[in-house]
C-alpha cells in the first residue's frame, strides 16, 4: 500500500517507522531538513508545500492510497487532506490539535461530515481522556474502560508493601471476575500464568468486571481507601483544559490549574468557573507551596515542554504527592522519565499512532487500546459464525496473548479454562507486541 504522510515531525517519524516495513511511504514536509531525519528509514521524502496539486499528483497514484496529514498546523493538515482528496481521492486521516476543528470535521448528531476527511484524529483529546481516567482511580497508573464500562482495565505498580507479591498468582485468591493479564518487569512485558510470582516494582495489568476490580483494589492495593479529592494541573493548554473539563463533569474535586500565560488564564477561568486558575509557573516552588499543592492527591503536568514537565513532576515527587502524571512529547524521553521515578509518563503520539495503524489494517480485529506505551495491545476479536463452541483450555494457545473478557450479548464473562467460546462472541484479548500478528490472524 502507498502511504503519504504530511509532516515530518515526531509523530510523522514514528508513523513512518512503523509503516515503512510493509508499505511504500512518502513523507512530504515543508522544510528541506526533514530529509535528514528520515535518512535511517526506507522512505521517500519530498520537501515543499503539501497542498500543491502537482506535488500531490506525483505522490498519490490511486484511490486505494492512504493520506495521513500530521503536521503541526491544523489548517495545513485540513487543506492538505482536501487537496489530496481532489487529486486522487485517497483515504484521508487528519490530525488536529484544536477542539474547534475536531468538532467541525467530525459527524454532528450522527450526520455524516460533509467534508472529504475520512478520519479526524485528535491526539490531545486522546491523551486528556486517558489522563482524566487515571486521575480518578487511586494508585492506578493506567485505567481503561471497555464495552461501555462493563469491563475495566487497571494497571498498578507494585510496592514492597503489596500483598500481591507474597505468593504465586494462583494462590493469591484474587476476587472472582478479575484476571492479571500483563506484567511488566523493566522493559519487558509478559503475560502471567498461575505460577507467576509478582515482585515489587512490577507493573501489573488487571482486567475484569467493575465490581470485581473495586474489590481487588480494596483487598490487595494498599492506600486506596482515600478518594481523589484534590488535583493540580500544570499547563492549561488544549490538553490541560480538556482534562480539567472532564474532571469537572460530575466529580466533587478541588481543581487547581497553573498556567503561565495570563491571556490563556482568562480563557481557563471562563471555561472552568469552579476551578482555581493560577497565573504562574508550574516550577515556581514558592507558588506551589503558597497554594498548598502538596496537599493534592494527584498532580498532572501537561505543558508542551518536556523539561518543564519533568521539573514540575520532580518537585511534586519531593512534595510526596501520591500520583504524578506527566506528559512526554518526545518518545525518546519516556524511558528516562520512568527511570527517575515519574509514576505515569504518557506520550500522546503512542495512542494516536496505534489508532492510525489499526485503521489501516483491514481485518475484523479492532485495537481498543494499548498498554505500557505500546508494548501491549488490547484487541477486540469477533469469533466467526463458523466456529464450533470450544472450551477455552482446548483452544490453540498463542504465547504472549490472553483473553481478558468474553462479551456475549449482555453478559460479561471473565474466562477460566472451562468456559466455552462460542460463535459470535466478542473477545477482549491482551497481547504483547510480538504476538500481535498471530492474534490478528487467529480465526
Amino acid at each position, binding site marked *: 500500500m502507498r502511504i503519504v504522510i504530511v509532516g515530518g515531525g515526531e509523530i510523522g517519524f514514528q508513523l513512518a517507522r512503523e509503516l515503512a516495513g510493509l508499505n511504500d511511504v512518502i513523507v512530504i514536509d515543508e522544510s528541506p531538513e526533514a530529509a535528514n531525519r528520515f535518512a535511517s528509514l526506507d522512505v521517500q521524502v519530498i520537501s515543499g508545500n503539501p497542498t500543491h496539486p502537482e506535488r500531490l499528483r506525483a505522490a498519490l497514484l490511486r484511490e486505494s492510497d492512504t493520506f495521513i496529514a500530521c503536521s503541526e498546523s491544523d489548517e495545513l493538515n485540513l487543506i492538505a487532506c482536501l487537496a489530496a482528496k481532489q487529486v486522487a481521492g485517497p483515504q484521508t486521516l487528519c490530525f488536529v490539535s484544536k477542539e474547534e476543528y475536531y468538532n467541525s470535521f467530525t459527524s454532528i448528531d450522527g450526520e455524516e461530515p460533509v467534508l472529504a476527511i475520512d478520519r479526524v484524529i485528535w491526539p490531545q483529546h486522546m491523551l486528556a481522556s486517558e489522563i482524566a481516567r487515571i486521575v480518578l482511580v487511586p494508585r492506578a497508573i493506567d485505567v481503561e474502560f471497555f464495552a461501555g464500562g462493563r469491563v475495566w482495565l487497571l494497571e498498578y505498580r507494585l510496592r514492597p508493601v503489596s500483598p500481591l507479591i507474597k505468593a504465586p498468582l494462583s494462590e493469591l485468591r484474587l476476587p472472582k471476575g478479575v484476571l492479571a493479564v500483563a506484567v511488566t518487569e523493566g522493559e519487558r512485558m509478559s503475560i502471567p500464568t498461575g505460577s507467576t510470582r509478582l515482585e515489587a516494582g512490577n507493573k501489573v495489568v488487571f482486567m475484569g468486571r467493575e465490581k470485581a476490580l473495586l474489590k481487588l483494589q480494596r483487598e490487595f492495593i494498599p492506600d486506596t481507601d482515600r478518594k481523589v479529592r484534590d488535583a493540580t494541573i500544570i499547563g492549561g493548554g488544549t490538553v490541560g483544559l480538556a482534562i480539567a473539563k472532564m474532571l469537572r463533569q460530575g466529580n466533587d474535586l478541588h481543581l487547581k490549574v497553573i498556567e503561565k500565560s*495570563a491571556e490563556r488564564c*482568562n480563557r*481557563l*477561568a*471562563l471555561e472552568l*468557573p469552579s476551578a*482555581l*486558575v493560577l*497565573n504562574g509557573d508550574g516550577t515556581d516552588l514558592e507558588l506551589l507551596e503558597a497554594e498548598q499543592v502538596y496537599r493534592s492527591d494527584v498532580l498532572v503536568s501537561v505543558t508542551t515542554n518536556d523539561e518543564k514537565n519533568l521539573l514540575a513532576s520532580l518537585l511534586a515527587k519531593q512534595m510526596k504527592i501520591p500520583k504524578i502524571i506527566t506528559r512526554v512529547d518526545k518518545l525518546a524521553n519516556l524511558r528516562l522519565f520512568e527511570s527517575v521515578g515519574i509514576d505515569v509518563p504518557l506520550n500522546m503520539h503512542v495512542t494516536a499512532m496505534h489508532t492510525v495503524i489499526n485503521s489501516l489494517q483491514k481485518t475484523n480485529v479492532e485495537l481498543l487500546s494499548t498498554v505500557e506505551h505500546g508494548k501491549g495491545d488490547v484487541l477486540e476479536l469477533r469469533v466467526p459464525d463458523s466456529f464450533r463452541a470450544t472450551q477455552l483450555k482446548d483452544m490453540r494457545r498463542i504465547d504472549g496473548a490472553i483473553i481478558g473478557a468474553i462479551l456475549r450479548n449482555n453478559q460479561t464473562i471473565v474466562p477460566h479454562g472451562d468456559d466455552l467460546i462460542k460463535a459470535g462472541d466478542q473477545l477482549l484479548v491482551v497481547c504483547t507486541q510480538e504476538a500481535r500478528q498471530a492474534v490478528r490472524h487467529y480465526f
Partner: protein
Amino acid sequence: MRLALIAHTVGLVLRYFGLIPILPLVVDFLYGDWQESIGFAVAGFGASLAGEIMRRLHRGGADLSRVEGLAVVAAVWLVVAVFGAIPYVWSGLGALDSLFESMSGFTTTGATIIQDFGFFSRGIFFWRSLTQWLGGLGVIALFIAVLPKLAIAGRQLFFAEAPGPAEERLTPRIRQTAIALWTLYAALTLLQILLLAATGLPLYDAVCNSLATLSAGGFSPHPASIAGYASPAAEWIIILFMFLAGTNFSLQYYVLKGSPRNLLRDEEFRAYVIIVLVATLLLSLALYQLTLGTRAAYLNAETSPQPLSQASSLTSLRHALFQVLSILTSTGFASDDFNLWNDQAKMILLLLMFIGGSAGSAAGGPKIVRALLIVKHAFAELFKAVHPQAVKPVRLNNRVVSMEIMRSITAFLLLYLLVFAVSVLVIAAFGLDIITAITASIATLGNIGPGFGTIGPMANFGDLHPVVKAVLIFNMWIGRLEIMTVLVLLQPHVWKTARAGD
C-alpha cells in the same frame, strides 16, 4: 468638536419635538382651558422654529465623532427641558421653577416645586406626565424610532442615552431596536391605563399616572400622590407596573417573543427580584414593629389620618412593597407619607436610593448591574488576597466582564459619589438639614423624586433657595445621562478643539 454640526443634529430632534405639545394642548381644549393651551402652542412653535434654525447651521451628512455624539445627547436633553418649561412659565411659575419642573419631568425624576395643585390646568398635569413618559425610554430613542434620518447617526446617541453599562440591541438595525422597545413600552402603558380605569380611577388620572409609572417618573396629578386615591387595587396595579418599569425592556421583549429564559436567567434580574423581596421583608417588619410600639406613624396622613398601628399586616406588606419598588425603580410615587415612618424604615429606603433599577429599563440610579459587578469584583479581590496569583475574572451571565468595563464602572460609581458629595455640601451650605440635603441630592441624582425631611412625598421642592434648585436641576440632568456623558464634556481640554464651522 464642530459646534455647527452638533447644533444641526440637535435641531433635527428639536424640530419634530415641537409637535409633541399639541397633545396637552388638545387636553386643555377638551377641558375648556383654552387660555392655558397657548403656552403649549408657544412651546411647540418655539421648539420647531429653533430646531429649524439650528438645523440650517450645517448642511449635515457628516459623521459625529464620539465626543460630538455625547455633546448632542447632553444638549438635546437640556434644550428639550428648556422648551418644555415654557408651558409652566405661561401658567405663572417662575423661570427657574419652570425649568426645575420640566427637567424633573423629562429626566423622570418626579420632584415637584408645585405647592398648590389646584392652581394649574389639566393640560399642565398631563404635560408633566407626558414629559416623563417621553424621558423614560429616551427622547433620542423615540426620534430614532420615528425618524429614519436620525438612524445612521443614532447608534452612539442611542447608547449614550440608554441607561446601563452594556450596549444591547435586539436587532441588527438600531432603528428597529428603538421601534421594538417603544412599541413594547407603549403597549404596557396602554395596558396599565385600562387596568387602572377598570379599578374606577377617572380616565384622566389613569392616563397621567400610567405615563408616570412605566417611565419610573412619579408625577401624579393628585397632590397626595397615589395615596390620594386610597385604592388598594390601584396600588397593586402600580406595584406591578413599577416592577416592569425597573426591569430591562430588552429582556421583556424576549419574553414576549416567547423566550422567557433570557429574563429568568439574567443575573441582574435575579438580583433585582432578591433586592425587592429582602427590602420588602425588612420594611414590612419595620412597619409591623411600628404597629406594636407606641411611636407614631401614620397611614395615609393626608387623606385620612389613621395610625398605622390599626393597619393589617397585609396593608403593611402592600405599603412596604409599593415603597420599595417606588424608590428602587426611582419612580417616587407614595402610597403613604413615608416621611412619617420611623428611621429604621427610612434607612432601608435611603439605601435603596443608592442602587436604582435594572440597566436598559426606565429606572434611574447607579443600576443594579453596576452594584452587582462591583460587589463581585470586591469579593474576587478578597479571594485574591489569599491566592495572589489566582485568575478570578468577574462574570456576569456566564460571560467574563472585561477589565475595561470594570474600570469604567468603578470610575462611574466614584464620580457618582463625588457629584453626590459636592451637591450635598452645596445644599447644606444653604441651611438645609442633613436628611434633606442628602435625600434631595440622591433623589435628584438618581431621578427618584421625593426625599425625606422638608422634601418628603407630600411636600415639595418649592421653598428651596434658587441656587439649591439650580444644583438639583443639574443633578437631574447629569443623573439621567449617567454622569459620564456630561462629565466628559466638562473637561476643559475637550473644548480646546471646539469651533463654529466644520
